[in-house]
């Protein structure tokens, strides 16, 4: 992804949901995108699949899948890329599945619309195989979404996502609505299927602990900008950007008790961002240059990028 800019037209003028976001993803790599609400992380995910609906629109930027620029594809060609090459695991909310159709139909209709010619019997077989690979009993195929628990619904979504053996799986807060025990089971299932497919995963979320334990490389977004992206070990041993450092410090840990180091100030409103670096009103190290010009992302150490005037 190079310099992606997504605008939302509101009565108060165009709002930049993502501003010049760039990153690269290796085959089979697990990349995490962490950020708080309004940071633009979900917008970026939907932009990759070109699912941004009005009043949002992709204003600029390129998204390359190996040698294909997704921005240049026709709507029909883009449709065929979805699920076949880039699959989405939706937010853990409870109605990502069609409430009035059985699970097996929701798997098979994806295969049919991607012109997978299989007989009814092969279809049943493929459904059973997919459900088993995500740890679900074959009977689930004939059940309706309201008969499944939260964890089971997410496993069905994973099964759908891997049904066409995609190269990239985008998981947008896949377990945010699940309890911690079920979350672990679902994430372990995702890890297993990813390894079997050798697919790359982009995990989007706000739970830094989940990021620390799952992804290889982690990007942090703030107010629509990618403020830092580095190998996950480096981020947790030596965070570069002040926001990353304060975010990690504010996380409740089991080591020292009673330490509450929140980040002062308020999350910025996207429609009237502070000039220069968007984080400067809350940054303890801000100096005059921070209020004037916006920092550009630079490679501070090999493989670690951050955009901050301090570095």
């Amino acid at each position, binding site marked *: 992804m190079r310099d992606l800019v997504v605008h939302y037209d*509101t009565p*108060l003028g165009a709002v930049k949901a993502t501003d010049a976001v760039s990153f690269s993803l290796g085959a089979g790599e697990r990349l995490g995108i962490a950020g708080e609400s309004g940071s633009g992380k979900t917008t970026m995910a939907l932009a990759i699949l070109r699912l941004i609906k009005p009043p949002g629109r992709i204003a600029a930027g390129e998204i390359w899948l190996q040698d294909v620029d997704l921005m240049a594809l026709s709507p029909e060609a883009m449709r065929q890329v979805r699920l076949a090459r880039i699959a989405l695991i939706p937010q853990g909310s409870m109605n990502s599945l069609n409430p009035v159709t059985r699970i097996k139909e929701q798997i098979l209709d994806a295969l049919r619309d991607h012109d997978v010619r299989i007989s009814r019997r092969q279809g049943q077989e493929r459904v059973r195989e997919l459900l088993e690979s995500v740890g679900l009993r074959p009977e689930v195929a004939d059940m309706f979404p309201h008969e499944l628990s939260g964890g089971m619904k997410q496993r069905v979504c994973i099964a759908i996502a891997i049904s066409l053996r995609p190269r990239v799986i985008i998981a947008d807060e896949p377990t945010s609505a699940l309890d911690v025990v079920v979350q672990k089971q679902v994430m372990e299932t995702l890890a297993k299927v990813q390894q079997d497919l050798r697919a790359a995963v982009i995990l989007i979320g706000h739970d830094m602990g989940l990021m620390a334990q799952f992804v290889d490389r982690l990007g942090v977004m703030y107010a629509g900008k990618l403020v830092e992206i580095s190998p996950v070990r480096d981020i947790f041993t030596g965070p570069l950007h002040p926001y990353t450092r304060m975010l990690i410090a504010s996380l409740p840990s089991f080591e020292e008790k009673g330490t509450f180091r929140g980040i002062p100030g308020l999350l910025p409103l996207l*429609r009237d961002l502070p000039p220069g670096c968007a984080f400067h009103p809350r940054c303890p190290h801000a100096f005059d240059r921070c209020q004037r010009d916006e920092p550009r992302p630079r490679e501070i150490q090999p493989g670690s990028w951050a955009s901050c005037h301090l570095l």
Partner: protein
Amino acid sequence: MAHAAWRYARRNLSLVVGIVLLGLLALFVGIGHLVVDTSKSRPLSAPAIRPPSADHPFGTDRQGRDLLATMVAGTPLTLRIGFIAGFLGVGVGSILGFVSAYYRGAVDSVIRGIVDIGLTVPGLLVLIIIAVSLRKGLTVDQMALIVASLAWLNPARTVRAQVLSMRERGYVEVARLSGMSGPEIIVKELMPNLLPYLAATLVNAVSAAILASIGLEVLGLGPIDSPTLGMTLYWVNFNAALINGWWWWWLAPIVIILVVFLGLFFLTVGLDEIANPRLRRAI
């Protein structure tokens, strides 16, 4: 203030259209009462079957009524039936809706049962049974009461649904924990959010009441000797004005009824827009 009103008007066009239509109607009736001698709406006060002319701008009907006078006198009567029945219906309906949604329990299931069954039964037929039984010289107000007897069903259903959804909201519990009593919560917390819905339901009820009253009158069950719009249509049908080509006789009431229903309809749509505007919050 005017500027804000103008800017809002542009966004909520249907409200404006509704107000303009009803305003025109009010003007027509208001000026009419000043200019026209409404006593001419009684039979034998004008030569029969005259097409529109200088001294009878709307023409006359077979019983010798001046149609302009009939319209000027009749429209407020029909509207009066609509408003009385509408207000009564929404008044009774919203109280029952409130009580059953807020206090739940047996009261709720009884009211819900009556409303659900009541709405499946065709209202007009029940009104016919009532009207037929009382058929001895109905007055306009009796007509309004008959129509009101069923007009409360729909408001009760909509208000109950609204209050049920609001009652579960967190701010009702916070109000209770802040020391507010039950009735206080209804007035201070629920009522303000309910007003736009109530207004839309009221306009709907008035519109439905007018339709029901005209329906009864066309069937001949209305106040026989009053010049309401419905009764005019009854005489149109009774005297087969259509086949005899007396077009002016039915054109006037139809145009006015159209204006009434279109005005009320756009008003409802406008009020719905206020109750739940599509664009809730900017980013």
